[in-house]
């Protein structure tokens, strides 16, 4: 393994500073927030140690918590099962049919670099009621589909889907870029060889592109899953978790508990849950993909 021919000490000496900073900024706060989760604390005054009561209440006796987890998983599920296949499909189309793809890919990427606040405000205006100049409802009305109009962000049953659509739209370009780059990196001689054997078009995609893109696709899956679990800013800007918790996700619930209800300990317990969820998800996804990897290598 020691291809560099350097002693372990030297490696340690060079790795150490970064490792120290990393653990100070990542592991220590996680541990501290685990500990805070064991406290009854308003964030300011004296804290009382109450053991696992916060966790107990969160898991068994909180009418808002599990629905929030459900919505978070919904967002993650939709983004993996709908957004990523679409992104992959577009990436394949671009790499096959477009001669100078850079412009297209950059355009798709544009929403990613926009501030979430800008995007939130933009879509809020689009979703507005027609009387307030909401674009979506006005289009529906001009098509004669008046019965399809909704106040998209404030009807409890559909508000969360309206937000999810925006989240998917924003990060679509990101995943297109990742997967497009992955496809570009597949050596073209494989396709040429396949052509000689009579496999081109869809067939080549099925047997060459898809298997070879698996490692890159895995990155996309992990990123989109973890990103969905942590989704917070968009929810905060568009609905603030409302109306009446109808769009509350785990991260926004954590924020509301810690800073608005001033239950810092309880908020920390939710944060700890989020950390564990992220870790578990990463391990499961990696496990699944290592099986896929084995099958195709």
């Amino acid at each position: 393994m020691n291809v560099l021919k350097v002693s372990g000490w030297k490696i340690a000496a060079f790795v150490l500073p970064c490792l120290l900073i990393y653990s100070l900024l990542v592991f220590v706060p996680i541990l501290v927030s685990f500990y805070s989760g064991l406290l009854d604390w308003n964030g300011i005054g004296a804290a009382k140690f109450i053991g696992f009561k916060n966790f107990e209440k969160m898991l068994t006796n909180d009418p808002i918590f599990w629905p929030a987890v459900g919505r978070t998983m919904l967002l993650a599920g939709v983004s993996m099962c709908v957004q990523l296949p679409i992104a992959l499909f577009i990436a394949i189309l671009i790499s096959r049919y477009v001669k100078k793809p850079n412009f297209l890919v950059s355009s798709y990427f544009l929403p990613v670099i926009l501030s979430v606040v800008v995007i939130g405000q933009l879509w809020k205006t689009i979703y507005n009621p027609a009387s307030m100049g909401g674009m979506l409802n006005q289009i529906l009305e001009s098509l004669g589909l008046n019965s399809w109009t909704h106040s998209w962000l404030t009807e409890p049953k559909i508000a969360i889907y309206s937000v999810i659509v925006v989240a998917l739209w924003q990060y679509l370009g990101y995943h297109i870029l990742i997967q497009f780059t992955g496809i570009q990196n597949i050596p073209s001689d494989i396709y040429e060889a396949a052509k000689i054997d009579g496999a081109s078009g869809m067939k080549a995609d099925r047997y060459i592109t898809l298997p070879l893109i698996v490692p890159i696709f895995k990155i996309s899956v992990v990123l989109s899953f973890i990103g969905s679990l942590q989704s917070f800013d968009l929810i905060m800007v568009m609905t603030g978790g409302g109306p009446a918790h109808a769009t509350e996700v785990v991260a926004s619930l954590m924020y509301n508990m810690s800073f608005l209800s001033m239950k810092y300990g309880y908020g920390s317990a939710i944060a700890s849950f989020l950390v564990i969820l992220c870790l578990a998800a990463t391990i499961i996804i990696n496990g699944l993909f290592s099986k896929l990897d084995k099958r195709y290598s």
Partner: protein
Amino acid sequence: MKFKPLMIALLASALTLGLAACGSGSNGSASSNGGKNEGSTNSQSNSGTKEDTSKKEVKITFQNIYPDPTDPKYKMIRTVVANYEAEHPNVKIELDSLNTDQQKVKLKTQAASKEVPDITIVNPAAQMKPFVDAGLFAPLNEMVEKNGLKGTFQEGILDYYTFDNNLYALPDGNNIALIYYNKKMFEEGGVKVPTTFEEMVDVVKQLKAKGIQPMAIGEKDSWTGSFLFMNILLRTNGGPGFLQDVIDGKKTFEDPAFTEAVSAFEDLVQAGAFQEGATSFDYNAGENLFKTGKAAMYFMGSWATGGIEESTANENQNVGVFKFPTVNGKGDPNEFMLAPGSAFAVSKDSKHLEETLDFLNYFLVNYPKEMFNLKGAIGLAQTVDGDFKAAGYSDMAMEVLNLFKDVKGGDLAFDNTMNPGTAQAHLSSIQNLFVSKTDAAVVAKEHQTAYDENKE
């Protein structure tokens, strides 16, 4: 290859410089700190030649919620600070201007690490209690006696900021809730100013029938709906003190006064009073509907007067105000939702406690005068000398001023009375009434459960 070490050294220094530049960019206070220290050594050597060298340099951080340049308070704070700095060359006041929500979160974070700025902003009663309990603020009992400052405050107002006979903060305002209405839109709708809540629901229906948006509200910031609801409760309860009775164990949220208020509130919502999608409008967006003449009525605290006065809706003195009416014949319109303002508090651990107290005293003595000049003196917590009419205040502003004379007590907002946990449950429960019709008994039950869980 020979130059390699040199290159590395250059690269390293470039990186360090880059980092330093980034650091100062993102951390404005640190860099301005450095700048100020340099400046101060200069001024010290200058003044040393003139007079006393004994006075040391003092920097006071003043966290405030006046970041909006169109707000009279924005100009006021800068004028007063500049005047004070001119009189006290050794004192430097650094303003940390944030909007309300940011300031709340920032202060909580600072308080958690016991790094409260020299002067900060807190809200009255229950909202500032955790900070006081944590022993973060210095008592202002002695300071307020100096220069007759205490005498300028209205009677009783300081009680909301007093805990165990110690005064911990001084308010920037004292407001009441009222309803602003657009006279022209009322005329178009053929309706008159309602004198009872039932008439008000009727007015809403008539305006709605004529295609006029009856009321505006910014319900994404859920306190707005709660403020209105609490005014209804103030009526159905036949007077103030419902929440206090709950805290004292004399009443529960399942009391008829409470369920009656919920039903009345739902009548208003179901009559279509508020704009479509109200729960996605934040405070400013909601208020703007009224200010731009797109809604006929607006329920808000009198602090909105200044902004509405300057708005397009008030061209030709078009905006009037009326008191919140009686509900089911109950209550007294002269009892108002009271909103003692955000208040200035001083950190107990301030490095320059004495100077900070001296500055705050100066600031508040001059505050009403400056605000009067800037036409922002409606709803101050201090008495203002001067003739408002002669100074050019509008008819609406005068009406609001006259309402203040009728005030016979009232209630504070829910989150100023109850602990934060119950308050949040209440806010989301009321917000829910905007989007789904819920049985009043269920709402009452939600409140009671939240209260039982959160009381200490």
